[in-house]
């Protein structure tokens, strides 16, 4: 009898995957899992559940027995709602029939967009620190991630001059996300205009992740790159319901793009996803019908919490700019003599406060931590008290 050979599953895995490091968030998540004493500023989602009328719309649709597949594109009523909403918010119009695709979150839409356009070796420029899935999604689509660092001294805005330096003959896409996860950065219109001009000049596509576009503060109005001359025809606008409408668990998003791009994304989506869940789509119809009425109260409350957190962080000696959007602050913790990762680990250990190490969002976030302030005000206050005591201790130890 032949000797049974041990099955080596590692060797069976796609080599494309081995180039993707483990998520720095996942590492950290495992440390806090099961702990009930932790005040967490470590999440990327609102503290409140989805507004009741939206939940009720889903319940009503379930009661009616709406439990089937929908069109691959998503419900027509939802696409019409998206078209209206996008036109109102971004001043750009898309045809619900040929230019809009409903997806399972912005996550799926991003993945589809990369897979739809990238050939092996094509380069994608994106700004870092950034949302954790950009690099891996590009790699999984056989593209080459080309991160461009943004800096604290620029309030993490992206410099068009840095983008220009990164452009090569293989560059195919520039991916943007403003307001940014994890920094809360907002892009100044002058730079956005220059980046738009670069896209046109070098004939590049642009993927703009607008997931935080409603969450802007200090009376600012959102301006997307898609609005600049020559951009609509080369842009995939990605948006969803997770953040503004507090709907992270519903897994609902969408892509708006010129017909050939939408069609290519649709081709992948129909085979790998079929359609987004119908109950989520029904909830989405109601969310868009309500619009700002559903999220304005939350937005205002985030703005107040941001004011509180930024003041406290600066008072305790952590340099932190005043982010114009999203619900994150990204303070530099180097005055404690610790890296972001050390800071987060020790803070969790000593004060039971969870923040996310900045390096989870790219190496340029190494000296920072991400704190989500979409957290109940009383918990936020306790977390800041814990952080202040912690920072005082380490600053003294270092002095």
């Amino acid at each position, binding site marked *: 009898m032949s000797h049974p050979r041990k099955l080596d599953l590692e060797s069976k895995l796609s080599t494309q995957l081995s180039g993707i490091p483990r998520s720095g*968030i996942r590492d950290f998540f495992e440390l806090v*899992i099961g702990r009930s004493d*932790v005040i967490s500023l470590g*999440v990327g*989602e609102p503290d409140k559940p989805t507004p009741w009328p939206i939940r009720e719309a889903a319940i009503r649709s379930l009661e009616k027995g709406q439990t089937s597949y929908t069109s691959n594109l998503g419900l027509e009523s939802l696409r019409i709602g998206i078209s209206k909403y996008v036109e109102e918010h971004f001043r750009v119009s898309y045809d619900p029939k040929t230019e809009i695709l409903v997806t399972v979150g912005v996550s799926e839409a991003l993945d589809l967009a990369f897979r739809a356009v990238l050939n092996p070796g094509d380069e994608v420029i994106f700004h870092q620190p950034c*949302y954790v899935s950009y690099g891996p999604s590009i790699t999984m689509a056989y593209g080459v991630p080309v991160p461009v660092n943004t800096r604290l001294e620029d309030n993490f805005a992206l410099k068009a001059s840095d983008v220009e330096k990164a452009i090569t003959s293989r560059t195919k896409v520039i991916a943007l996300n403003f307001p940014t996860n994890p920094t809360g950065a907002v892009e100044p219109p002058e730079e956005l205009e220059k980046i738009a001009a670069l896209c046109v000049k070098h004939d590049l596509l642009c993927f703009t992740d607008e997931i935080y576009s409603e969450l802007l503060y200090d009376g600012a109005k959102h301006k997307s790159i898609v609005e600049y001359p020559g951009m609509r025809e080369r842009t995939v606008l990605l948006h969803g319901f997770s953040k503004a409408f507090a709907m992270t668990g519903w897994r609902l998003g969408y892509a708006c793009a010129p017909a050939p791009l939408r069609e290519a994304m649709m081709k992948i989506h129909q085979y790998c996803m079929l359609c987004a869940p119908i109950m989520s789509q029904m909830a989405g119809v109601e969310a868009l019908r309500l619009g700002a009425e559903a999220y304005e109260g939350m937005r205002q409350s985030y703005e*107040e919490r941001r004011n*509180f957190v930024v*003041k406290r962080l600066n008072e305790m000696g952590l340099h932190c700019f005043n982010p114009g959007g999203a619900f994150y602050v990204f303070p530099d913790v180097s005055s404690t003599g610790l890296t972001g990762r050390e800071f987060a680990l020790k803070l969790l250990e000593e004060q039971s406060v969870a923040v996310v190490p900045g390096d989870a969002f790219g190496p340029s976030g190494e000296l920072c931590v991400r704190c989500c302030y979409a957290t109940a005000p*009383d918990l936020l206050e306790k977390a800041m008290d814990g952080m202040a005591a912690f920072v005082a201790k380490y600053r003294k130890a270092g002095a």
Partner: protein
Amino acid sequence: MERLLELLKENARLSAGDIATRLGITEAEVAARIAALEKEGVILGYHAVVDREKTDHSGVTAFIEVRITPESGGGFDRFARRVSQYEQVRGCYLMSGAYDLAVVVEGKDLYDVARFVAEKLSTLDVVLSTATHFQLRTYKHDGFMLNTPPTDGPLLVSP
């Protein structure tokens, strides 16, 4: 409603400093505005919102519908103010519809409330009729949900 009032309605224990930080104005401005609101009687008082079922309080609360004959000159006001004077009366509202006043009464027990209705309310000659409804269970009070079943908490870390 102005935002400062909304914040205080949510949490009256916020300090002037906290409110100032949140709204991006000075602490002195907040203190002055609160003083003015108190003086104008916009802010009537501050209280804790209590889940009575979790205390040893064994009292009852009743909503009483009262129909009355409006008095010449005073309309409903004179009667409503008079009823409101009783300490047992926690609330008193003029209503549209099938009855005139809704009176919220707290008592030690059923008999206590019944006695109040029989002796204090019904004896007033403008009262045409009363209907007393006892509160059995509270699901939401002053904007707070009560007795909600616990759910799995959210994740502590997410992207």
